[in-house]
Structures are given as C-alpha cells and as structure tokens.
C-alpha cells in the first residue's frame, strides 16, 4: 500500500506541474532594474483601486472616492489608492507657482514660497485622515455592501511638514487672535475655521506623505494636517492662513459638516473623530473562499482622541466578545491593525469589531448612537459595523438587534 502521505497527494491529482516542471520564470530573465524607474502595482492587483459611487454626487468633480481598505493590510495606506475628496477637482499646482499667505491678526503679514517652507524645522508623524462623512450613508440603515464603501473615506500616511505653530510664530499672533481660517488654492477654497489652541498644538503644513511629495490629489505641494480631526479641515493646496477673532462660519462649517439631531437642532464644530473600527476582511467584497478551518479576521481601528488600546471582536453579533491582537501598540491619532486568529466552523457569523481608546471611550452600537443623534446626522457615524458571513463564505452588510 502507498504511504498515507502519497495517497493524500494523489487524491489531488498527483505531483503539481507548477513544481515538477521548470516554469518560464525559473528559466528565463525577468525585468531589469531600468524597467520601471517609478513602479506601479503588478497587473494582477488591478482591482486594488479607489472606487467612487456614482449616485452619491451630481458629478465626479465635487465628489469622493474610497480607499480599498478591504484589500490592504498593515496600517500605511499607499498614496496611489488613498481616498480623494475634492470640491472643485484635483488641481495641478507647481512648486514655483505656490504661495502661502499668513494674514489677519498677526504682527507681520507674510508670504512664503514653497522653498521657504522647506527651510523651517520639520516634524513627522503617522496620522489617519478620515472624512467626517465616512460611514455617513449608513445612518439610516445598512446600505453599501463593502468595507471600501462603508469605511473607505480614510487613509493613514506618514506626514512630514512644518508645525503650524512655527509659521504662526514667524508672523506673530496677536492677543486677539483666537481662531485661524485656512483655505486652499482651488476654486472651492474649502475655507475652514480652527481654534488657535488646536492650530498651535499639533497641526502641520505638510509637504510629504509616505516619504515622497504629496500626490496632486492630496494637495501637492502643501496641505494642512490636523491630527485626529475631520478630513475636511485638512485643507489641500493650502494657500492662506488668516488669524481671526472668531470663526468665519463658512459654507463647509455651516451648510456642511454640521450634524443634525432628531429634534432638528444641529451640532456645529464637531471636529474630533471618535474611536472607530471596522473588520476590513472578511467583508462583502472579500468573502471566505477556503471553507471551514483556520482563518484571519482583520481590521483597522483609530481614534481622534488618542491611541487605540484595545479592539474586541464578536462573531455572534455582539453576544460575546474576544480581545483581538493589535499588530503594534496603538499610536495617537494613527490607525492600528488588529487580528483575530479564528477557526471557522463553517456556520454563519455576525462579525463585529469594537474599538477602545486610551480615554476609555468604547465604540458605540448603531442603536446607542441613534438614540442620541437620530438618523439624520450624516457625519461622525462611528458605530459598530456588522458583516453577516454566510455558510458559503459570502458576506453582507447587515444590521442586528
């Protein structure tokens, strides 16, 4: 009789020709080192791309696309597929044409060139940038089928730039200066008001992301980085910082980015992004294809108020929870990757994740959030997400009791 090991393998059709036959790539030469001076992903990964939802906006110019978080791992978002949100399109602004003005309640109104910026002391940090509308389509119920669409208005990059406090000190903020108003060089300008306390805390004028120059669509050559606060404040193609006595109450902080409660009253100045997490895979776009047995449940967690200290995962819709493994200790205002090493028995699962940050804040359920805010808030939906994993391994966005 054949040894057990051989029987098992024969059952699979005998030796694998991918192993027993010399493949072309093991005989001939591949690409040389001059083939791609700046490389792109291999063609097999052409589905790992930003996607937009055509019915969300009137056109694709003032619109948004979504990071393919369901296919990524680790915490860094590659710039090439980091989500974009513009209000009048991604503009092309060359460094020699770049000017940054500081005006208003300062001792010296100043103009900087791009080269000037590079002469100031720099700081560096990995921060998440989340659109306040991330998960906004889910307020009234499960709507979009995929973590890319429900949670993909976010990226996490390593930024380098000049602390805003350094630039403000250069201009000399007057005592009456309590706010700043920041705007971009694009037609929308996307003006926003930020309290001076935050402005001189950790805000930076960044010119690099993930090591290299900002991409065009992320504000080349310089954007604001406002750690932990909503993405709309991270003004791209930054051209002006005005020190003011009060908030300007611009369109982006009145008509938009205000959160209407059930009673019709709206919260304004909701800047900070509360603790949130999502299981990125398995999820509707990436079902389980391998059947029962060992598997990895993974996702991302982040908090605008500090570092993630813990993420719990439930496979039964929130009846029971287990602490997931954090791939690295949480860092302030940066994404944390979590893993739950699971053995799937092939039965249905209702997958959830729940983030906890170092303030002790625990990510709420959809019910808990709606009890306070109703269903019309659009923004700041940081509720627990549920994926229904079916017996065939496919997954769907659902809500549970």
């Amino acid at each position: 009789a054949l040894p057990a090991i051989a029987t098992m393998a024969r059952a699979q059709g005998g030796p694998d020709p991918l192993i027993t036959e010399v493949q072309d790539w093991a005989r001939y030469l591949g690409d040389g080192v001059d083939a791609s001076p700046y490389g792109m992903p291999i063609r097999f990964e052409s589905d790992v791309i930003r996607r937009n939802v055509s019915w969300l906006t009137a056109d694709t110019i003032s619109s948004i696309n979504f990071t393919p978080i369901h296919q990524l791992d680790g915490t860094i978002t590659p710039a090439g597929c980091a989500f974009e949100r513009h209000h009048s399109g991604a503009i092309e602004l060359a460094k020699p044409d770049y000017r940054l003005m500081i005006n208003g309640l300062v001792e010296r109104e100043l103009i900087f060139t791009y080269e000037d910026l590079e002469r100031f002391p720099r700081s560096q940090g990995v921060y998440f940038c989340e659109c306040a509308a991330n998960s906004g389509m889910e307020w009234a119920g499960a709507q979009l089928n995929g973590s890319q669409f429900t949670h993909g208005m976010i990226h996490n990059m390593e930024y380098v730039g000049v602390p805003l406090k350094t630039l403000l000190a250069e201009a000399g903020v007057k005592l009456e200066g309590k706010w700043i108003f920041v705007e971009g060089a694009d037609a929308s300008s996307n003006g926003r008001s930020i309290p001076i306390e935050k402005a001189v805390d950790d805000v930076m004028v960044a010119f690099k992301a993930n090591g290299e120059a900002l991409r065009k669509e992320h504000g080349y050559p310089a954007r604001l980085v406002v750690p932990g606060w909503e993405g709309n404040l991270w003004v791209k193609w930054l051209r002006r910082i005005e020190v003011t006595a009060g908030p300007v109450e611009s369109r982006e902080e009145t008509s938009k980015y205000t959160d209407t409660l059930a009673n019709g009253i709206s919260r304004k100045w909701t800047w900070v992004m509360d603790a949130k997490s999502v299981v990125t895979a398995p999820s509707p776009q990436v079902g389980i294809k391998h059947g029962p047995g060992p598997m990895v449940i993974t996702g991302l967690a982040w908090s605008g108020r500090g570092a993630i200290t813990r993420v719990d995962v439930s496979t039964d819709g929130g009846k029971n929870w287990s602490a997931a493994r954090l791939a690295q200790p949480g860092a302030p205002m940066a994404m944390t990757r979590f893993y739950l090493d699971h053995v799937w028995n092939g039965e249905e699962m209702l997958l959830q994740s729940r983030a906890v940050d170092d303030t002790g804040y625990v990510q709420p359920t959809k019910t808990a959030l709606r009890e306070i805010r109703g269903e019309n808030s659009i923004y700041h939906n940081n509720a627990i997400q549920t994926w229904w994993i079916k017996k065939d391994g496919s997954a769907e966005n659902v809500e549970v009791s």
Partner: protein
Amino acid sequence: QTQVPQTDAEPAAVQSFGLGRPALPEEVAAWDKDVSPDGTGLPEGFGDVATGEERYLEHCAACHGDFAEGLDNWPALSGGEGTLDRADPEKTVGSYWPYLSTVWDYVHHSMPFGNAQILTADETYAITAYLLYSNALVEDDFVLSKDNFTEIEMPNAAGFVEDDRADVEYPIFTAEPCMENCKESVEITMNASVLDVTPGDDSAAPDAATEDGTAVAPVN
C-alpha cells in the same frame, strides 16, 4: 555609556527665522475675501432681487434650477422649511443656513461651479438677494447692500449648538463594555442587499435606491 539621547520629536521653539517676505496690501486684498457673520470682509456694494434673478438665470439656474429648487443631483438652494426634524431633512440656504454671510462668501468665491470668482461684489449682493427672495425671506423689491446686510436674520440661526459630545456622549460611551452573554438573542434587522445600491458587477441601477424611497444620504 553614551550621552543622553536627544529624541524630542518637536522642533525647538525659535523666535523668528526671518523667512518669507511681507505681504503687500494688494496681495492681502486679493486673497482675504472671506466674509464673517458680523459682516467683516464685506465690500461696498448692493444689488436688488430683479438684477439678482437675471444674473442667477445666467450663471446658476442650469444647475440649481430656475427658482433655486435644485435640479437632478445638484443642490437645492431653496425650500425645505420645517423638515429638519423629519427623516431626510431638506437643508437649503433658507431652511438650514444660519448666516447670510456664508451665502455671500461662498457664492462670491466658489460659484459658479466650473467658473468661480467671476462675480463682482454688486452681482453677488444681487444674487444673494435673489436667493433670499426664492426662499420667501424678502419681498421682490428688496435691495441687499453692505449696510443692511447684517440686519437679515436667517430662519435657522438658532438651530445650532456647539459640539456637546463630551457632555452628552462620552460619559455613556466610557462604560466598561460587556464581554460575555451580552444579549439573549441576535436577529438581522436590515440587509444592504435589499437596497442593492453598491457599485459593482452585480449592482442594480443607482435609481433603485431613491425610487423605493430609501434614504441615500449625500456625501459632503
């Protein structure tokens, strides 16, 4: 063994680097055009509803509709009164915006979409007057000017409170979470597949979502 490591992540505070150059008044004037609720930033000028309607029809109506009622997916700028406490509030200049300064500022800087910063101050006053008119907030003979600007009270001016999550939510959401047997039973109460609005090979037409009356919140 070796010296104490210098690992401060933050650059040291320095008085002044002497970098940059003074901004000229003309330069500040060119870019400092924002307008605040108290009227700060408003230039001299004025405009009446009739002129505003003319300019509006010329520059704006193609997207926002003749009466600012919106068109297709382009934003409505009028209507929606009394809907803020209902499902799917209609938020417009009339029903939602707390300050008139925001209209002036945004229209003057960012509209018309695709051809921004072409409106003069007078044209902006006139169009703003027309938007007030289309929201039934002024009569048809109204003239808006720098002088009477701050007299206009917007209907939803009192409709906003400052972020109160720290008081209202954080105490509740900072309780020790349950880990075991947290609920008796779990039922699925809603499925994305019912709506079927996700783009992709198996997507229904986008209209399916709005036709059946289900909320599809716009992203902003």
